[in-house]
């Protein structure tokens, strides 16, 4: 009799869902997708500062931020597109094209503000073209942007005619390279702009209906449409708004290199995707936080900078970033698969 009771209680125990560590971690990561990259960032920073005390010096951290500014701001736009379950392979090409137009116009005597406005508009139009091809002709974003990547790159090279343009500092276009001293920290205007972009889009994605609709569209477009979300409009807006971000990234790039160079952003396309993916945003759409992409961009820079400081071959940085990308996608798969 008592044996039978005992048996039933063990059966109960077996069936009852257990609140294991893995389960709890899963539910936390589910709510805060940027948490695991943040942990990685903190751990790597601690390790590098133990390995070389120069790492944590304000001067070094300032340089690190400046190096992350261009890819970091591109990653904001890339996040918007990836949240809709899309991908934009042409982000760097759009930025370089816009920066070259800005630089060449300014070098030719055009007013800096006007030169910026024209380059900025060009970036928006280029992104609009991607968005229209995705929403109207219903082509996969990967294919569309693979094509436009070549188109924009070619246009850049044709327009540049092999020239690089250098601009004097102190002008409107190079303002983004100016430094503001805060104690021993030196933040460029470009870094501050990047941080502002993150603040603006963290707000827009979390606190506005547009943000909710972007997530819903990336998550399940048919469900979002049936619930009344104008999914095509949301998709197009994601590309266009991302284009505006790329226009600002172009300005930051001009300030960073004091001019325009058709070969400046060769790796920026993939680096922005790397930052977003390491930052915990799902390539399948509908999941992630824009702040994660900032963390992702910083992680890449920390590896770059830290390994250089301790005298390790730079190739290991590339290796480390590759491993991180695979890890990040694996974590994302795990978050999406198990139901808590």
């Amino acid at each position, binding site marked *: 009799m008592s044996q039978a009771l005992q048996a039933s209680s063990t059966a109960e125990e077996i069936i009852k869902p257990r609140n294991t560590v893995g389960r709890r971690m899963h539910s936390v990561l589910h709510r805060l997708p940027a948490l695991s990259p943040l942990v990685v960032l903190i751990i790597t920073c601690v390790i590098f500062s133990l390995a070389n005390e120069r790492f944590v010096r304000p001067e070094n951290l300032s340089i690190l931020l400046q190096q992350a500014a261009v890819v970091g701001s591109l990653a904001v736009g890339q996040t918007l597109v990836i949240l809709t379950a899309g991908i934009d392979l042409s982000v760097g090409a759009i930025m370089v094209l816009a920066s070259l137009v800005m630089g060449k116009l300014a070098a030719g005597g055009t007013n800096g503000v006007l030169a910026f406005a024209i380059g900025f508009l060009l970036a928006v139009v280029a992104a609009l073209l991607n968005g229209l091809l995705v929403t109207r002709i219903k082509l996969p974003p990967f294919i569309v942007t693979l094509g436009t990547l070549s188109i924009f790159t070619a246009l850049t090279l044709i327009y540049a005619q092999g020239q690089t343009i250098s601009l004097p500092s102190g002008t409107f276009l190079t303002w983004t390279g100016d430094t503001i001293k805060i104690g021993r920290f030196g933040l460029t205007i470009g870094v501050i702009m990047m941080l502002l972009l993150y603040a603006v889009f963290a707000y827009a994605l979390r606190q506005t209906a547009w943000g909710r609709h972007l*997530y819903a569209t990336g998550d399940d477009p048919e469900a979002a449409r049936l619930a009344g979300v104008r999914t095509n409009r949301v998709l197009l807006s994601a590309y266009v708004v991302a284009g505006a971000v790329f226009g600002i990234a172009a300005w930051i790039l001009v300030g960073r290199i004091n001019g325009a160079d058709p070969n400046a952003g060769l790796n920026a396309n993939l680096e922005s995707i790397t930052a977003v993916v390491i930052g915990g945003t799902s390539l399948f759409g509908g999941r992630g936080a824009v702040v994660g992409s900032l963390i992702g961009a910083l992680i890449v820079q920390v590896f770059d900078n830290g390994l250089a400081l301790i005298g390790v071959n730079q190739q290991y940085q590339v290796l480390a970033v590759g491993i991180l990308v695979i890890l990040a996608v694996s974590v994302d798969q795990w978050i999406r698969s198990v139901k*808590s």
Partner: protein
Amino acid sequence: MSSKAVLEAHGLVKTFGHVVGLGGVDLTLYPGEVLAIIGDNGAGKSTLIKCLSGAMLPDAGNIAVEGNGVSFRSTQDARAAGIETVYQTLAVAPALDITSNLYLARERRRPGILGKVFRMLDTPDMKKHAKNHIDDLGITTLQNINQAVETLSGGQRQAVAVARAAAFGSKVVILDEPTAALGVRETGQVLKLIRDLRERGLGVILISHNMPNVFEVADRIHIQRLGRRVGVITPKSHTPAEAVAIMTGAMTLDPAEADGELAET
């Protein structure tokens, strides 16, 4: 006819290439009644409700809400006219929480400058209303409204979708197979919700394969067969076996019965 129809459709036609989805279907729904739509697979049930809910534009035919002609170009149009739909696929965004799903595409903004200029959502207000609403409906399976929908069971997701329709439907609520994925107790809850909606004077359209459910809750039963309405019966006038026979073509109704007028008295 004691009251005016809240939703009427005449001669709805929808074709998909050579396939006839709807071959001229009429439908009448009165306020405060539950109209069940039954039919075999491919009878045009889903196409019919998609036309009524704005998810699909019929090739021909008229739809009227309270006697006024309408043309729904999107589900938003139908919602604006007071028609809410619970789709078989539920149309919920898995990664969003219950509140966000209830208010998806009709979010509330903060009053004042925060809402107008900064377009800020009024999340606390939406949460409060969502909670009250779910409590009012007596849905006990949804404990935490901050939970992501993908962490819910099938029955709980159904409850979210039904709650959304019930919360915002002012004239008509359409439910496509609302009990298909549910257990006995959850089915009972959904049927109770349907009766509550009828009590509130709404017109309810229920698409279901489940004959016991249909005969338990429906006032009238619209039978679709091969893209056409073959008759309208009531649970009193016919047995479930007869309904199935009509549905499958084993039995036909007299024209007088088939137009549904007999059943409406």
